[in-house]
C-alpha cells in the first residue's frame, strides 16, 4: 500500500511539470479518438515503446550513471520468449511476457555480476560485447529460427485476439503499450525515491563514499540492472506481437542498443521525464523526416543528415540533454 502511495506521489515535482505531464497524458489517452493517419499511430506506438526502453535504461544509466550499451539483448530475450512460446506452444502473451522478463532478469544477473566489476568505458564496452555474443548465438540457434528469425503467422490467428495480442487495428496495440507506459512512469517514480534509488544516486556521485557509507555498491548495481532489463524485455515481448516478425539483426542489433541509450541521454539521463522527452523528440523527428524527405529524388539520405544534425546540436548545446536545458533555465530564473 505504501509502495502504491509512493508511486502516485509526485509532490516533489514543480506544478508546471505536473500540469504539462497531465496535459500530455490526456492527449495520449484521447489521441486515437481524433482523426489521425496510420503513420501517426505507428509513430505514437514507437514513441511509447522507446519511452519505456528509455525508462528502463534510465534506472541504471541515468540514476546509476552506468553507461549500458547492451540493452538490445534483453529486447531480444523478451521478443524471442514470446514468439517461441506463441508459435511452438500457443502460449498467450500475458503468460509469455512475464516469463520473458524472468529470463531477462536471470540473464542480467549472470552477466551483470561479473560485468559490474568493470567501471566507466570498460563497462560500456563489455555490455556491447555481451549483446554481440548473444546475437551471434541466436543467429546460429535453429530452435529460435537462427538468422532467419521467427514469424508469427499472419494467417493463423484471427484478430482481435486479446490473449495472444494479435490485432488488425493498431489502436489496440496503442492502448496496451500506453497502459505499460503509465505503469512504467509510476514504477520509476517509486524507484527514484526508493532506498535503492537513493543508493544509486550516491554511487553515481561518488562510488567510494557510497561504499564507506555501508552501501553494497556492487549488489545495488546488479539489482538495478535487473530492473532495467525487465522493462526492456517487456517491450521486447510487445514488439514480437506488434511486428509479428523478429530476427537477431533487427531486435538485437547494436543500433537498437545505442538508440535506446541515445533517447534517454538526449532527453536527460537521471530525470523522470528525460527518456519520455527524448523519445518524444527523436522518434517523430526520425519518422517524419524519413516520410517527407526520405524517398525524394535527389534528396535520398537528407533525412538522416538532418536527424544527425539535430542530435549533434542538442548534444553540443547541453550535454545533459533537454532536461538539462530546462533545469538551466529554471536556475537562471531563480538566481
Amino acid at each position, binding site marked *: 500500500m505504501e509502495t502504491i502511495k509512493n508511486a502516485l506521489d509526485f509532490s516533489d515535482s514543480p506544478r508546471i511539470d505536473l500540469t504539462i505531464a497531465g496535459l500530455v497524458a490526456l492527449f495520449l489517452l484521447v489521441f486515437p479518438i481524433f482523426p489521425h*493517419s*496510420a*503513420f501517426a499511430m*505507428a509513430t505514437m506506438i*514507437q514513441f511509447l515503446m522507446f519511452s519505456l526502453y528509455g525508462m528502463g535504461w534510465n534506472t541504471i544509466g541515468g540514476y546509476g550513471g552506468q553507461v549500458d550499451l547492451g540493452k538490445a539483448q534483453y529486447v531480444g530475450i523478451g521478443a524471442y520468449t514470446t514468439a517461441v512460446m506463441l508459435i511452438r506452444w500457443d502460449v498467450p502473451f500475458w503468460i509469455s511476457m512475464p516469463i520473458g522478463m524472468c529470463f531477462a532478469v536471470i540473464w542480467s544477473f549472470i552477466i551483470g555480476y561479473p560485468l559490474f566489476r568493470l567501471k566507466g568505458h570498460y563497462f560500456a564496452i563489455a555490455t556491447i560485447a555481451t549483446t554481440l555474443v548473444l546475437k551471434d548465438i541466436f*543467429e*546460429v540457434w535453429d530452435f529460435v529460427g*537462427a*538468422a*532467419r*528469425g521467427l*514469424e508469427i*503467422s*499472419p*494467417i493463423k490467428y484471427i*484478430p482481435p485476439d486479446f490473449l495472444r495480442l494479435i490485432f*488488425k487495428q*493498431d489502436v489496440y496495440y496503442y492502448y496496451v503499450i500506453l497502459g505499460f507506459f503509465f505503469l512504467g512512469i509510476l514504477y520509476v517514480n517509486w524507484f527514484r525515491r526508493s532506498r535503492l534509488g537513493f543508493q544509486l544516486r550516491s554511487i553515481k556521485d561518488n562510488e567510494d563514499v557510497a561504499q564507506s557509507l555501508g552501501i553494497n555498491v556492487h549488489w545495488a548495481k546488479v539489482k538495478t540492472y535487473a530492473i532495467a532489463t525487465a522493462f526492456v524485455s517487456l517491450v521486447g515481448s510487445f*514488439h514480437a506481437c506488434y*511486428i*509479428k*516478425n523478429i*530476427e*537477431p*539483426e*533487427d531486435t538485437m542489433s547494436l543500433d537498437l542498443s545505442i538508440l535506446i541509450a541515445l533517447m534517454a541521454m538526449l532527453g536527460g539521463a537521471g530525470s523522470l521525464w528525460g527518456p519520455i522527452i527524448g523519445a518524444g523528440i527523436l522518434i517523430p523527428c526520425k*519518422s517524419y523526416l*524519413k*516520410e517527407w524527405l*526520405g*524517398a525524394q529524388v535527389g534528396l*535520398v*539520405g537528407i533525412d*538522416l543528415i538532418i536527424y544527425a544534425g539535430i542530435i549533434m546540436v542538442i548534444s553540443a548545446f547541453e550535454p545533459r540533454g533537454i532536461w538539462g536545458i530546462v533545469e538551466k533555465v529554471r536556475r537562471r530564473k531563480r538566481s
Partner: protein
Amino acid sequence: MKTAVRFGMVVLGVLAVVGLMVPSAALAAKEIKIGVIYPLTGGAAAAGRELRAGAELAAKIANNVMTDISMDMAKNSGIKNMGGAKIKLIFKDHQGNPTIGADLAKKLILDDKVDGILGCYHSSVTKTVSAVCEQYGVPMINGTSTSPALTKRGLKWFWRTTPHDKWFTKDLFELLKGLTEGKVRGVKAVPKKEIINLASACEKTEWGSHVSDIIKSLAKEYGFKLKKSLLYAAKSPDLSSEVRSLKAVRPDAMLFASYTSDAILMVKTLKAQKAAPKIIWGQDAGFEKPEFRSTLRDSIVGILTRTVFLPKVAQIKKVAGQVNTLYKKNTGNDLGGASARAFTGLQTGVHVLEKAGSTKPADIQKAANALKIPGKELVVPWAGIQFAASGDEIGQNVLGSGLIGQYQKDKDGNLVLEIIYPFDVATADMIFPFSF
C-alpha cells in the same frame, strides 16, 4: 449585359464541343496508386537506385504508347481495360529494416490508399510487408526477394515473379557438374577432385542464411565437400577474419551471398590476403551491382555471379534490347538483375490490372492467380510468368529461370558479363581457373 450573355453562351458552346471531342474513357481515367518499398538508403542503397529506375521505367512504358517497344504494355496509354488509368508510383525507403518496412506498408495501405504494393528487395523486409498486406487484403507483387520461405507461408495476397534461391543455387551446382563433364564452353572436363572442396560465406539475414542452408544441402546432393560455411554481418567494416577462416580450408570454390558494400569488401580482402580459389561465385545482389564493377575493375575478371539479366540477353531477346536502350539512356548503366526484375515486377502488376479491369482486391487476386504472360513479353530470359495457385509454393512464378555470368574483358578492353550457364546460350568461353 447582352455582351455578357453572348460571351457566356460562347464559353458554354466551346465547353460542350470539347466535351464531345474527349472520349468518355479519358473522363473515366483514374490513377492507380502503387506503393513501392525499396532500400533507398543504407548498405543496399545502390541496389535501391537500380530498383527504383527499373520500376519507374516500367511505369513510364505502361503510361505511354511506345511503338518502338515490342511488348503489350507499351501499346496502350495507361491500363486499357480501366479507361486508360495511369500508374502512379509512391516510393518509400525501408533502409533494410523489417520494422520500418511494416510501418511503411501500413502507411501506404491506410493513409495513401494504394491499390497494391511492390517490393522490397531484402527478403526480411518482404516478409514483414507481405504479412501486413495479407492482414489488410492488399495485393503485393515481389520481383526481387529470393528467400524460398517467402512463398511457403500460404499467403493469398502475395505473388513473386523472380525464381528463388533454391533454383539459382541449383544452377551453380549444375555448372560445377558441367565442369566435371566437359560441358562448359572453352573448358576441358575438370576432374571432380580438383573442384570438390567448397567454402561459403553468406550475409546473415533471411536471404543469406537461406542461401547458406541451400548450399549445404545441394553440396551434399551433388557430392561436393563443403569444408567451411559461415555467416557474417553485411554491415561489418572488416572481413579479414572471415576471409582467413575461408582460406584456412583451402577451398577450390568460394561461394558468396552478399549485398553491395560487403561484396566489394569481401573481394578486396580476398585479394589482399592472396586467396587462390579456382572459382568465385556470387549469388547476384552485390556481385552484380554497377558499383561492384566500377570499384573493383579488373580484379573481378573471372568472378561468376548468378543473375536473371545480363546485357548479353539483349542480343538474344529483341524486347530486352529495346528496354535496355531506354534504361541506359535514363541511368547511364545497362539493366542488371535487380532493375530488370523490378521492371518485370511492375510489368506483371500492369498485366494483372489489365486482366482484372478493376482495382478491387478480389478482382486483382483472381486475375493474378489466372495470369499467364508469355516469355516474349519479358526482358528477362524466362519462359513467362504464371503463378502457382496451389501446392506448397502458392504465389510463386513457376516459369522463371536463372543465368550465371562471368566478368570478362571484351576485345575493346571493357569489363562485361558473359553468359556461362545455361550451356546452350553461353556467349563466351569460361575463364577457369580464376586468379586475381
